[in-house]
């Protein structure tokens, strides 16, 4: 992985938020859609420049896979549970169970964000059971 271009102009507030323990997303000022990942227009109605918003970081597991054969740079971490989480504000993101037994999390479980250092050392959102 190369980090040369990160954060980029679209993502800088997101990663700054993570560094201060906040999960940021964007919300359309026109149609009120929650937008993730953060981008410069509303994916629903096309209105430009959605507003930044802070998520409470609580949601529900939508999908979950325990990775046994990881990419090379994650080799020493397997098995681990990769999640798709539906946040209560109405957006979905990928993340990972932050700690504990990968088998201990199931689809439908309530989860809560925590911020740990990611693979590149940057504070990154992970989830634990709520």
């Amino acid at each position: 992985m190369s980090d040369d271009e990160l954060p980029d102009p679209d993502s800088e507030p997101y990663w700054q938020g993570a560094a201060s323990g906040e999960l940021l997303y964007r919300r359309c000022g026109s149609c009120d859609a929650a937008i993730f990942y953060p981008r410069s227009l509303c994916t629903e109605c096309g209105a430009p420049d959605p507003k930044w918003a802070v998520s409470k970081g609580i949601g529900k597991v939508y999908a979950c896979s325990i990775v046994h054969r990881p990419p090379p740079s994650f080799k020493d971490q397997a098995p681990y549970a990769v999640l798709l989480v539906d946040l209560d504000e109405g957006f979905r993101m990928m993340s990972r169970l932050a700690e504990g037994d990968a088998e201990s999390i199931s689809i439908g479980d309530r989860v809560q964000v925590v911020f740990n250092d990611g693979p590149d050392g940057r504070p990154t959102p992970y989830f634990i059971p709520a």
Partner: protein
Amino acid sequence: MSLKRACAIAGVAESRLGVVPDSTVLSLQAEALVDALADAGLQKSDVDGLLVSGAWGRLPGLQIAEYLGIQPAYSDSTMVGGASFEFHLGHAAAAIQAGLCKVAVILYGSTQRSRADKYIFQIRNDLGYQYEAPYGLPTPVGSYALAASRHFAQYGTTNEQLADLAVSTREWAALNPKAYRREPLTREDVLGSGPIATPLNKLDCCLFTDGGGAVVVVSPDIAKTLDKPPVWLLGQGESVSHAQISEMRDLTITPAAKSGARAFEMAGVTHSDLDVVEIYDSFTITVLLTLESLGFCPPGTGGEFIANGRTGPSGEFPLNTNGGGLSYCHPGQYGIFLIIEAVRQLRGECDARQVADATLALISGTGGVLSSNSTCILGVE
């Protein structure tokens, strides 16, 4: 506007498949082109349209045209993953209908097994991928595993049902001399093959081979002058929904829902009219989700649909009759082989694996991580 009978497929061929170390991505495509043109009864000098897709090189559309010595009047390098070739078929039909070309060739080649052209599998962390890359999901298998996890939880689908599809597909491969894996396979073999990313096991995943293919698409007036019976494009639809799995709205409904509906409407046929079906099988779950999205069975019932040998040579629903990406070959982007097999079935050229009296076929290509789909309906006469 319809593409119905706007073009016909006049020639198809594979290159050598499997492990082909004495080749390049370019030579494999040349190899397939020569055989496909011979199959069509046409010359290289007849070719005025070129449709290519690949994760190799810098500008594949230019590099392959140069290598072959073709200066096409119409070019298309649509790259939407393994489904690209079903997109190309629709695009070739539109170009021919518009009079932009008369003999278009769809090409693919990959030496991913023998050489290091594995760019498509590298984890990226730029742009949208920066929101997934920190979590170590292997690509593309992990994304399909997430979709499978959702289908299992939502509908009670089981690993046994997925395994049965792999077994049926292997039974077809046993009838195809060109298939890479032909030895018998059992449900227990699949279930015991070890988890890659739950719930997908190793034998839920496609092969990793070299290989190439070529498809010659011609205008109706040319089709009628050739020796072999033309295989007509009767309907085509395409749809793109996302690039990365966290952006897929409903992990149980693929873009095939939209593209399939368009293809059926254009062709003016229905599911029960079809004799043979070829569906992209990057993973067993890909097939299950595509069958449901295309409307072959209601949402949630794909597991029952594929279980117990129903799609195998002695089943009632002939599916992936060449042995599929699971057992025949899978050189990174498999979609071109769906076209090749459907054409051969409709021409009655499939020997031991021939589906009797096949006159109408559906092919459905899926690319990326359930990201893109083009579905085509083909027929003879």
